[in-house]
């Protein structure tokens, strides 16, 4: 994985010390809250319902065992012994105390981590396909470009005060595991007819109160031109994006207002200007140098199938169930990708205790895993597992209460922190996710339902991606009482679409019955092997509405 050079290391250390000075001045009364707030936000520090929350950047979702142990230590020493992995592959600690935050930042700096650009109107942490370097369908490791973009965007003077926040995601195959369609810029690595690898660039995706699916602004951008092209997009946005209304300031609104054709025209004009200078041409040698940081591990020469693995699957039904959903095809024979579910039934989606983090770091060492990945679906991934080790892995994960066999199933629910923690939320998300997961806890029932993505947000800001859930749930405040709307038909994958609100909402208890009702309709009208999403797309909302709102 990427290792900081001297410049990176100095930057994050100096930033932590700079923040220490800012905190001291705030506590001494030399800075007002209005003066201090933008400074703390630049370091990922929010004030939430019960306390301060520190959002830690995990670039492209990749962590080493050393980093994971450090996160466990920080959570245990400075917070309440757990963290919450988010849909942007970050980690949030919900009980930070202001005077201790500079020490937390220095601890992070020790393991090449920081909290910069996890808040504010700048380019946020770059996210990428969590199967990077391991997926059989991958064209190139998306973290190479992601790291280059991280370096390009970190403290970029021109883009540090954008009209609004700006999120970029990179996917490395036709299968979109990075939800690129709902990012301000989504990048798909692809190959053209001549066999050359380049980038398809989308712009203007996003959720929140005005959701949009991103549109293609560059069908094929050559590798050498990608920085110039993205800088062109950013310049058009920085110049033309609205600053007078926070709700209309994202690039998606600009694209919607001027249209994608005009956006393309402006980007191409700006791109041509930047190209003339040549300064942003990405040298192939530099790309190759960054690429060496993401070189795959030394794989053993293994048979395609492991006899031990196959035999354990036959012998142990629970293990076979876990394999069915949580193990994915690896590009190398004899290897597999293992998804660790952070959706144990009854637990908070995305939460991981310090003890579990330490336990996972030990597991990584035991199985020679240099990296663990955070997914935007709030799970973790061990990317390069030997098939023959999977049974032992599953046993160790189960001992950590992390062996749930539910990846991609109805209980693998994305949920934002919601009103249990978040200052912006109108309703709780976590208890709804827990109640639905419990209702459908029977694994045979979950497997029978197949792939079914439920995503829950506690407010219209949509951190829980409810617009792109096969079943989305949006919590709203109805006269001081939590109320939950159901949306159907969304997808954040390569077949991206926005869900549609089905009808009137439900209270905290009614929403679980309502979800079960909707799933009952699916079971009745589905065709053999048809996913929930495909059934919905075939039959539309009517059958679901009729049964749900029948009197």
């Amino acid at each position, binding site marked *: 994985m990427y290792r900081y050079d001297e410049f990176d290391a100095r930057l994050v250390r100096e930033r932590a010390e700079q923040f220490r000075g800012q905190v001291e001045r705030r506590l*001494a009364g030399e800075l007002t809250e209005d003066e201090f707030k933008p400074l703390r936000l630049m370091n990922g520090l929010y004030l939430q319902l019960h306390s301060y929350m520190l959002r830690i950047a995990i670039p492209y979702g990749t962590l080493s065992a050393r980093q994971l142990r450090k996160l466990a230590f920080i959570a245990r020493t400075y917070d309440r012994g757990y963290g919450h992995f988010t849909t942007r592959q970050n980690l949030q600690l919900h009980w930070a105390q202001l005077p201790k935050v500079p020490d937390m930042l220095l601890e992070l700096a020790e393991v090449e981590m920081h909290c910069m650009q996890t808040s504010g109107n700048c380019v946020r942490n770059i996210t990428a396909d969590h199967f990077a370097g391991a997926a059989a369908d991958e064209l190139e490791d998306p973290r190479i470009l992601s790291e280059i973009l991280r370096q390009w965007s970190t403290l970029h003077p021109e883009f540090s005060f954008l009209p609004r926040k700006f999120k970029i995601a990179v996917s490395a195959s036709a299968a979109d595991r990075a939800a690129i369609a709902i990012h301000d810029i989504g990048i798909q690595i692809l190959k053209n007819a001549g066999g050359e690898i380049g980038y398809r660039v989308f712009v203007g995706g996003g959720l929140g109160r005005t959701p949009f699916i991103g549109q293609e602004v560059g069908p094929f951008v050559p590798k050498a031109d990608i920085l110039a092209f993205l800088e062109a997009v950013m310049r058009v946005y920085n110049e033309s994006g609205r600053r007078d209304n926070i709700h209309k300031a994202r690039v998606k609104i600009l694209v919607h207002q001027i249209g994608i054709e005009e956006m393309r025209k402006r980007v191409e004009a700006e791109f041509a200007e930047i190209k003339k200078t040549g300064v942003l041409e990405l040298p192939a040698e530099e790309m190759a140098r960054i690429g060496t940081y993401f070189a795959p591990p030394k794989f053993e020469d293994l048979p395609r199938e492991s006899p031990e693995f196959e035999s354990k699957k036959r012998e142990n039904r629970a293990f076979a169930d876990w394999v069915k959903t949580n193990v994915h095809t690896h590009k190398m024979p004899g290897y597999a990708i293992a998804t660790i579910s952070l959706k144990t039934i009854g637990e908070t989606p995305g939460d991981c205790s310090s003890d579990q983090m330490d336990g996972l770091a030990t597991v990584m060492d035991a199985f020679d895993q240099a990296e663990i990945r955070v997914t935007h679906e709030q799970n973790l991934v061990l990317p390069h597992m030997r098939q023959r080790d999977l049974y032992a892995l599953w046993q160790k994960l189960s001992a950590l209460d992390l062996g749930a066999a539910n990846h991609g199933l109805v209980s693998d629910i994305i949920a934002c922190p919601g009103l249990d923690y978040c200052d912006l939320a109108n309703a709780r998300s976590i208890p709804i996710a827990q109640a639905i997961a419990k209702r459908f806890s029977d694994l045979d029932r979950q497997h029978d339902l197949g792939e079914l993505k439920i995503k829950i947000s506690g407010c219209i800001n949509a951190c829980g991606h409810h617009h792109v859930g096969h079943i989305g749930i949006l919590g709203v405040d109805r006269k001081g009482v939590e109320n939950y709307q159901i949306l159907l038909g969304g997808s954040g994958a390569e077949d991206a679409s926005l869900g549609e609100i089905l009808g009137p909402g439900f209270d905290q208890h009614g929403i679980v019955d309502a979800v079960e009702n909707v799933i009952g309709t699916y079971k009745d009208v589905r065709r053999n092997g048809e996913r929930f999403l495909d059934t919905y797309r075939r039959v539309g909302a009517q059958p679901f509405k009729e049964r749900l709102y029948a009197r």
Partner: protein
Amino acid sequence: MRMPQVLTANRLVVGEVVYWGGPAGWVQRLEQAEVLMNGAGEAALANAAEWVRKGEIVAPYLFDVRVNNGVPAPVKVREVIRAAGPTVRRDLGKQAD
């Protein structure tokens, strides 16, 4: 008729939720908060600006309550959760004290 109100904020240093307790100053528990009747909230909120200036608290605001036997109960679930802690972690927040 206006509902009774309570003035709340977060402590600057630790971010903890606090309530205006009248003569007691800023208090930790909602039941110790002063119930502000008949528009007294605005005056208390204006007074809070001085505590903000002194760096004791941040983000003060008023919220509506119902009063049962002299004890304020929030109208909105948001304030119920702020007063207690996360409903999904009963071991954390004021509810755990």
